[in-house]
């Protein structure tokens, strides 16, 4: 019967493949009218110990604290002291100054690659402040703000970027793929999303040992398509592991808009619903909302109430990296037209509004940060830049493959040293 019907399929509707397409392309004016942006303060704040289901309305909402009037609103206001807010402001501005200088350094040929996080500074800086220093960070490659929030020395970061002889990672890794155990920051992989199940595992280990450390992972919205995202959340849900999954939805994954990762159908926060864990969707350009949400998730995890998935809704203002030219796939104006503004300006304006900051202070801070970054860059440059000979000795290439070097690597190491002496007999 069924196959008979299929043969007569002529009058059945023809299937068609849907391929998502962003609303605007180069030459178009950016259109964000489709975004449903609720006013700040309108979102309820459930107790940290609530059932996961109590957060589900928030998966399709947007937690916001800073309003158009530059004042704080509603129950998510984290009530940070002016000092705490100034520190977050300063570190976000430092991230931006650092990004600008390192981008230029790449253009000047001092290194092979760089990648900015412009417009997304709050999602790393403010979120890190909501964690304890002991909590382990499992970053993606766009979380330089986590290192800066944990006051990791800029010179160390730049030594890594320049792949020079002072680079603690021995020049082995692509620039920005840091590792910084000293500040509980996991080694960054170039392969997307691998850090997510690792974060779950770290959190499970902490729970196995009866410790009180959490794991917090960051991932781009594009990377949530990887299978690792699924198993990370499944394990976290099954074992109620004290993990925070921060999805930075900056709208773009290289040239692919968020629709290619499924955003036309559901929010990224709403993924939490299927796993039965808590989920929050947050204005990622509102440093206070970011802090409040991360703090909520940290308090929840720390009191054994399990994992939380947070979507930080933000915008990638710059190209993907120094290898990318975004003007070929999106309108040039999009970043300027992004309706949630700039995270640094918004926090600055709030501090102005409450009389805790001034234009003069801000300008002085910017000048100071610029000088700080310049000095760090000069200090790192004294240790060498990429491709100018001041790198780690060749034998270091063979170290750390194993704890102890097997015979074949010893032989190969001798070969490498001999080749160098042929190339540069001194």
């Amino acid at each position, binding site marked *: 019967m069924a196959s008979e019907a299929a043969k007569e399929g002529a009058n059945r509707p023809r299937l068609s493949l849907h391929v998502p397409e962003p609303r605007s392309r180069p030459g178009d004016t950016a259109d964000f009218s489709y975004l449903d942006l609720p006013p700040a303060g309108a979102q309820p704040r459930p107790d940290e110990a609530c059932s996961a289901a109590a957060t589900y309305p928030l998966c399709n909402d947007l937690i916001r604290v800073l309003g158009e009037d530059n004042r704080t609103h509603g129950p998510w206001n984290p009530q940070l002291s002016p000092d705490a807010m100034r520190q977050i402001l300063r570190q976000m501005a430092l991230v931006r100054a650092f990004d600008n200088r390192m981008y230029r350094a790449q253009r000047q040929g001092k290194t*092979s690659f760089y990648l900015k996080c412009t417009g997304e500074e709050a999602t790393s800086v403010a979120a890190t402040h909501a964690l304890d220093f002991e909590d382990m960070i499992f970053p993606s490659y766009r979380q330089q703000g986590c290192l800066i929030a944990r006051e990791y020395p800029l010179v160390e970061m730049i030594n890594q970027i320049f792949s020079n002889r002072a680079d603690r990672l021995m020049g082995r890794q692509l620039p920005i793929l840091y590792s910084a155990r000293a500040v509980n920051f996991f080694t960054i992989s170039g392969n997307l999303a691998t850090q997510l199940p690792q974060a779950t595992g770290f959190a499970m280990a902490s729970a196995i040992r009866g410790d009180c450390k959490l794991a917090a992972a960051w991932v781009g919205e594009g990377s949530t398509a990887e299978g690792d995202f699924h198993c990370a959340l499944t394990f976290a849900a099954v074992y109620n592991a004290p993990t925070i999954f921060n999805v930075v939805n900056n709208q773009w994954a290289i040239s*692919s808009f968020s629709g290619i990762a499924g955003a036309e159908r559901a929010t990224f926060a709403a993924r939490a619903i299927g796993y039965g864990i808590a989920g929050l969707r947050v204005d990622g350009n509102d440093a206070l909302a970011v802090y409040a949400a991360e703090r909520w998730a940290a308090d929840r995890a720390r009191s054994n109430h399990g994992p939380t998935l947070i979507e930080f809704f933000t915008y990638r203002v710059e190209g993907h990296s120094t290898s990318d030219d975004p003007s070929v796939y999106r309108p040039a104006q999009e970043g300027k037209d992004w309706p949630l503004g700039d995270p640094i300006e918004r926090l600055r304006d709030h501090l102005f509004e409450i009389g805790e900051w001034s234009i003069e202070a801000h300008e002085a801070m910017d000048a100071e940060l610029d000088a700080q970054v310049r000095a760090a860059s000069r200090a790192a440059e004294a240790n060498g830049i990429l*491709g100018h000979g001041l790198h780690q000795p*060749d034998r270091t290439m063979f170290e750390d493959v194993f704890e102890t070097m097997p015979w074949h690597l010893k032989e190969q190491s001798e070969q490498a040293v001999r080749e160098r002496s042929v190339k540069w007999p001194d």
Partner: protein
Amino acid sequence: MAGLDTAPAAEAESEVPERELTMIEAINDALDVMLARDPDVVLLGEDIGYFGGVFRCTAGLQEKHGKTRVFDTPISENGIIGVAVGMGAYGLRPVPEIQFADYIYPGLDQIVSEAARLRYRSAAEYIAPMTIRSPFGGGIFGGQTHSQSPEAIFTHICGLKTVVPSTPYDAKGLLIAAIEDNDPVIFFEPKRIYNGPFDGYYDRPTKSWKGQPGAMVPEGHYTVPLGKARIARAGEALTVLAYGTMVHVAAGVAQEKGVDAEIIDLRTLLPLDIETVEKSVQKTGKCLIVHEATRTSGFGAELSALVTERCFYHLEAPVERVTGFDTPYPHSLEWSYFPGPIRVGEAMDRLLNE
């Protein structure tokens, strides 16, 4: 078609207009030809649609052939290969792109346990006629996750073919042959020579494909058959087995040293053109194997075993292997890692002095 000793397939007659293309343009051309010729061909991968791929290999193809033939995928290599298996089961001929060979591992189960074995386990009820394209190899300061050469992982899997071109002409002809092949093909594109040949001297000005052997590419459809090697340089003193970028490095060293090497560009690693290999080694009595991939259990180990097994009584010296070191691809020491002219030259000297 200077420098090409293999006669092109019958269709590419001498009247067919040719033009000089880069390897990227030749790959783009092959995809364009196949999209136009065969409605079953579909292209899928990260950033390959509107944008045209991070290396521009699919530039313009979505606009020309439509969004349901050439489209962006979610960032999931497992998903990309898995859906390609399903599309093949329906009867399509998918050409998935994996943005860098270093990112193919999340898709490994779908390749190894599924695509490679579909034909066998279903007694040919189902096949996986897909060609997985992916740029591989180093030399662009990409660090360990943009530089790997994982071809030996795939030649070790029964049911997969593995192909590596070394010129624009071959890239187009091999890619068309791969797409038309009914078995799954891993098509690794040596990204260092996308825009020009590379002799291993990273500190000399880069060359473009302009005026280089193998850069003239006929328009339209032609194939370079899978499983056929190319003698890139005929010679008597020793045989060099290479593929991809290393064909150019070996040729450069032979020229510089004035060594009368016979350089065989394998083109297809599996199935291997064993006849051409045997004939050459039996003639020269000496064999140097060169690849950029790590040494231990690399494809060179298989080649060395084959040559030793099949040409033992012709060999006048032990088979030599020149490879990348057995470490992850380092960033700053990239050129110490790369099997460049010194390493290749020393091995040639050793063989010639035997």
